[in-house]
């Protein structure tokens, strides 16, 4: 798979007076592969919306990189984005279909306007594109000439999606696209999105606070807390076996639980308010104070996000190393070798590669007489 978009050490700080800075996004590393659907979950104030604006390049970065298809796009000034050719590659679907549609435009005009601004389509080609897209999102042609107030919530949501995909972006960012919809309509829109993702092959970044929706729609999930990613991994695995205490708390907080989840009330967050995002203590775990497992060490040493097993990472001292990691730690100690923490993940991944090779050797039929004889093809 090819990396479509990649964030490297991405940082966004907002000055809040008195030389203080609000750390909205604080050193994120992640990527989205071509055709992949990634869910971004986290609560209000965790930096989700800032991250979305950084990725869509409508907000300038403080530091770090954003790469799209291997090309750095982090330095495109947000104010230049409107006219930048990159703009059509990354499109957004907004939360509230009512607020995000211009009441003076019909559905057809809304969809066509997007295509006209971002592509060189015009005339009959444009008309055709609008109608094809309407078909794609299940919007009957007779609704195309209606104004937003003449459409239902679900129909407006479809217009919002059509407007985004009419330019055939490679990344679609969906910001809580079903939050404003009733449950009966939400189901239809989710299924529509699932179909679009399979048919159009574009990548989705699906921002949501609804873990059930993310679990059903996304291949992979990133969990954010106070500007940092605290856990990442395949969606189904993360929800079935959450590693980070914050992820566990999110799942334990869900009324009715989560299919396959194994959390209890003991996993719920304790205490009161979250830490302030203004100049947070770099040496303290951001969840400290609300975490049911917090200990002294969490107060003095912020745990880095590290690979726990293949494809899964978490930032917590208590998320134990795998047996293999424990072996590496013991072997390093035995040989009296110190590894720079920044290189520890690379070491784990190299060791995992050798382990995978050793597994291949083991899986081959080793005893001499069971090794299959050479076969000859004429």
């Amino acid at each position, binding site marked *: 798979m090819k990396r479509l978009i990649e964030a490297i050490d991405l940082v966004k700080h907002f000055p809040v007076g008195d030389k203080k800075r609000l750390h909205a996004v604080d050193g994120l590393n992640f990527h989205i592969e071509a055709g992949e659907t990634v869910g971004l979950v986290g*609560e*209000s104030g965790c930096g989700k919306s800032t991250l979305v604006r950084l990725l869509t390049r409508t907000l300038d970065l403080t530091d770090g990189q954003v790469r799209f298809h291997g090309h750095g796009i982090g330095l495109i000034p947000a104010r230049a984005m409107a006219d930048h050719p990159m703009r059509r590659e990354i499109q957004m679907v907004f939360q509230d279909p009512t607020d995000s549609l211009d009441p003076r435009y019909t559905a057809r005009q809304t969809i066509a306007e997007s295509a006209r601004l971002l592509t060189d389509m015009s005339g009959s080609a444009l008309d055709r594109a609008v109608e094809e897209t309407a078909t794609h999102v299940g919007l009957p042609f007779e609704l195309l000439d209606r104004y937003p107030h003449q459409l*239902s919530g679900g129909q407006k949501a479809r217009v919002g999606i059509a407007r985004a995909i009419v330019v055939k972006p490679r990344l679609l960012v969906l910001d809580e696209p079903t939050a404003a919809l*009733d*449950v*009966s*309509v*939400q*189901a*239809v829109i*989710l*299924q529509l999105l*699932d179909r679009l993702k399979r048919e159009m092959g574009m990548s989705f970044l699906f921002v949501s*606070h*609804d*873990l*059930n*929706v993310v*679990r*059903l*729609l996304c291949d992979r999930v990133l969990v954010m807390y106070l500007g940092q990613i605290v856990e990442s991994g395949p969606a189904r695995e993360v929800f079935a076996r959450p590693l980070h205490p914050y992820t566990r*708390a*999110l799942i*334990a*907080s*869900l*009324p*009715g*639980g*989560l*299919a396959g989840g194994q959390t209890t*009330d003991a996993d*719920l*967050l304790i*205490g*009161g*308010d*979250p830490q302030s995002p203004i100049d947070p203590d770099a040496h303290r775990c951001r969840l400290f104070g609300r975490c049911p497992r917090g200990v002294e060490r969490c107060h003095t040493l912020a745990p880095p996000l590290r690979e726990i097993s293949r494809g899964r990472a978490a930032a917590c001292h208590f998320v134990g190393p795998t047996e293999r990691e424990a072996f590496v730690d013991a072997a390093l100690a035995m040989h009296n070798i110190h590894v720079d923490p920044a290189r520890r993940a690379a070491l784990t991944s190299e060791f995992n590669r050798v382990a995978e090779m050793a597994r291949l050797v083991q899986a081959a039929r080793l005893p001499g007489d069971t090794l299959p004889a050479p076969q000859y093809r004429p």
Partner: protein
Amino acid sequence: MNSLLEIHKFSLEFRTRGGTVRALENVSLELLEGGSLGLVGESGSGKSVLSFAVLGILDAAARVTGGDIRFAGQDLLADNGAAMKNIRGRELAMIFQNPRVALNPIRQVGRQIEDVLLRHTDLRGSKARERAIECLSEVRIPDPERRYSAYPFELSGGMCQRVMIAIALACQPRLLIADEPTTGLDVTTQAAIMRLIRDLGREKGMATLLITHDLGLAREFCDRIAVMHAGHVVEIGPTESLFKSSAHPYTAQLVLATPVGQEQLENLAAIPGNLPDLRRNDLPPCRFSERCEQRSEACASALPEIAIAGNHLVACHNPRMGKSA
């Protein structure tokens, strides 16, 4: 257990320029002392209007066209002035979604609790202050003495909702009406607030009426659930019975449309059609019948009230019997 809130064949209309909206029709339900009832439905189902009617805070366009609402045996619709006011302030309290808006932004939160105590109790001066701090402590607000002097903007959404609950519970009401109390709050905060409401209700023997669009929330925190659709209560029963053997087609579809507990996105089933326009003069007896897959000739006649089990009732001619959703 005694009945605390009884609503019997209650009907209500709104006169609007666009016509008469038949917002509630023949709504009946009962909430026992110390019990918890979830009133569940999508937007437009009438669940909030019903709670406003209980609280007597309907707007001028509303007109009660039938039925009655009794609280601890007293008729809430009979306008007997001061007595009613006392019931509504003291024995019956309410919390809303978006607590920041419901609180007075320019008054310290502790003082806002004291205001309620002054109105409904004999507590005065330092006693009132002590009780206000005690109320903050009861809703598990850390450092209540200091928070007494805080203004709403200085508190998080979750803390504001705790203050709202403290205000609501200050006079030890017998019924708490919670209208979407956690909508807009983070899921971890929602969990804390809902557990607080549940635990305080149990401690104090207070009944709760939870109004929510979230079926999962009602399932976790209520003993009984009433499902509303287009101004009708279509089904009411004990929580587990309602989920395990949903009798009304709408309830069954609502359960299937909710992602909670679903294994595959394909299993999610949308509910076809829309709510009927409640301004219509030709509304059918069953307001779901026009979008119902199990409709029959019988649906044209007046709605029955069928008991599935002792206290599990459904308003449907063709209830799904013994089937699980």
